């Protein structure tokens, strides 16, 4: 047992050191910065919680945080809802699993920025969608609600994150023994009932994993909202980016980062608890 444990430690040591160095140290620096303050050109290194007071009372911060969580939540829901049927298809309805798994990684073969730009091209005022609708005489004027808003951000991110949601859900579906579904049928359940009483509760871990993988990075995304979000689609990370850039207020940026991180952490924990409890209640 002892050698097993030490072997485990040895095996995880490189990863632990890596994480230790590349996460803990920057995080520590961030914490320290958040208690300093920015004077005109230099940093005042006396410890104070003034940044926290400022950030937590600023309605803009609260507004952006709520919106970020809302958008990330929408992205997560949309992505998981899209990914689930695809994962289901690959797990149960096709023999060509490897081919399909390869196909879903195709978006990664081009850069993320290019993908965001292509959404701009599709959704824009003179974009593909508007031109198509115009030439089909379905609309008289280009639609303006397509781009530069929350919808565009959700759409772009859901597309970008889909593979990350498909994979964990696929893995959890793959683990379901087909005889369990036959047993459910045998006990009188229709296919839909079997899905809700066997497949869904058994894939809760996959759904939770997919949701966290999408939700956490999405809250902090600033590229997508900057490119397709307009002013209506701005998120907390855009504000943080400004602090480290144009506004040149690193301490406030650090504070905002930490507040966002803690909020996301709490929301994530709440979600995991709710989802697993809900999954356990299905019988």
């Amino acid at each position, binding site marked *: 047992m002892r050698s097993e444990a030490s072997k485990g430690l040895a095996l995880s040591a490189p990863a632990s050191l890596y994480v230790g160095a590349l996460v803990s140290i920057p995080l520590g620096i961030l914490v320290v910065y958040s208690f300093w303050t920015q004077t005109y050109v230099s940093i005042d290194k006396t410890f104070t919680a003034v940044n926290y007071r400022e950030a937590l009372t600023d309605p803009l911060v609260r507004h952006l945080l709520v919106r970020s969580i809302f958008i990330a939540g929408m992205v997560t829901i949309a992505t998981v809802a899209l990914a689930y049927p695809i994962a289901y298809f690959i797990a149960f309805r096709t023999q060509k699993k490897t081919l399909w798994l390869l196909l879903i990684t195709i978006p990664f073969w081009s850069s993320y920025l290019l993908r965001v730009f292509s959404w701009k091209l599709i959704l824009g005022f003179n974009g593909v969608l508007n031109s198509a609708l115009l030439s089909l005489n379905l609309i008289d004027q280009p639609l303006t609600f397509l781009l530069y808003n929350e919808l565009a951000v959700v759409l772009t991110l859901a597309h970008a994150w889909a593979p990350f949601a498909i994979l964990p859900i696929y893995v959890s579906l793959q683990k379901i023994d087909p*005889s*369990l579904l*036959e*047993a459910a*049928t*045998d*006990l*009188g359940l229709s296919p839909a009932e079997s899905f809700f009483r066997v497949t869904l509760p058994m894939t809760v871990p996959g759904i939770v994993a997919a949701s966290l993988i999408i939700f956490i990075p999405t809250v902090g995304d600033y590229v997508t909202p900057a490119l397709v979000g307009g002013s209506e689609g701005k998120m907390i990370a855009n504000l943080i980016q400004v602090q480290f850039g144009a506004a040149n207020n690193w301490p406030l940026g650090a504070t905002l980062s930490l507040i966002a991180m803690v909020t996301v952490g709490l929301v994530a924990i709440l979600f995991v608890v709710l989802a697993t409890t809900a999954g*356990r209640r299905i*019988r």
Partner: protein
Amino acid sequence: MSDQNIIELKDVEKRFGSFVAVSDLTLSLKQGEFFSLLGPSGCGKTTALRIIAGFQDHEKGKITIDGVPMKDIPANKRPTNMVFQSYAIFPHLTVFNNVAFGLRKSRLSKAELDQRVNEALDMVELTGMGGRKADELSGGQRQRVALARALVMQPKVLLLDEPLSALDKNLREAMQLELRRLQQSIGITFVMVTHDQYEAMTMSDRIGVMFEGKLMQVDRPEVLYAQPCNREVAAFIGGMNFVPAELIKEDGDQLQIKAAGFGTLNIDVNPNVRERGSALLIGVRPEQLEIAATKPEGYDSTIEGTIANVAFYGESVHYYVEVEGLTDVVSVAVPNYFHTVDYKSGDKVWLGLQNSSIIDLGKG
């Protein structure tokens, strides 16, 4: 058991591509019967069971359960329940919720549901285990949960696919008796698939022996053992010495034959034999042969041989005897009484045989 037929299968056929998995399956089962489908691996037993359950479609034939044709009735609406080979216990549910699974649809009151689940758990001797998770159960307990989960639905027919094959030998034997007792006390028709002849014989009212998708013989265990219809069935059930023979004369229910090694014999016609020619095959069960150091008295025929091999089985000893005129060694099983004379390889022995214990197996 009543005289009423609960299941009728008529000319059922199932193909996978051009491969015929089940063909010409015709069978009637009585209400309350314990029926076993016995056959080697890949002969189509599971396929046949799944066709009855409705999990597998079939190209030809007709299935009726309790007088109702099953043609357009999907698996979830059939009056059958199944105990799966892997047990298929829902891993995300407790034992109680596994057993209650099918009942939840029927909108029973909570008290009624609790009562029925607990009765089912009592029946399979899992009283008080309702709170356990599936992964906290032993193989035997999982098997009981699967059984309770199916029985609680009060099916007209319970289908069991090798329900005991995952258990160790002692537990398996205990469960054989228990399953049989349970079946008799609740009076539901059981259809069990197995490749274990002993299991089939100890538990069943009747056994259907299947080879390559075809049902070869359906009979009570004693009849299958005493009068198998051909070489394949005879070889599959119990040990058997096969001896080629020639038909000399057929006389009513008697055959006069000349058997290799044994000479001229008069034997009974086996009514289950379907094909007969001048070349014939006879069978002798190893325990029906007498072995002696000197020529034994009072037997219809006696032959001399040499012991080639001895195998000790605990409750019996098997001697493999070389006999002139026979290519295969003759196996003789002797109960392991204390007074048994021990023979060893190379010993000269005599074998004694009664005509009544020779089985006519038809065409050779």
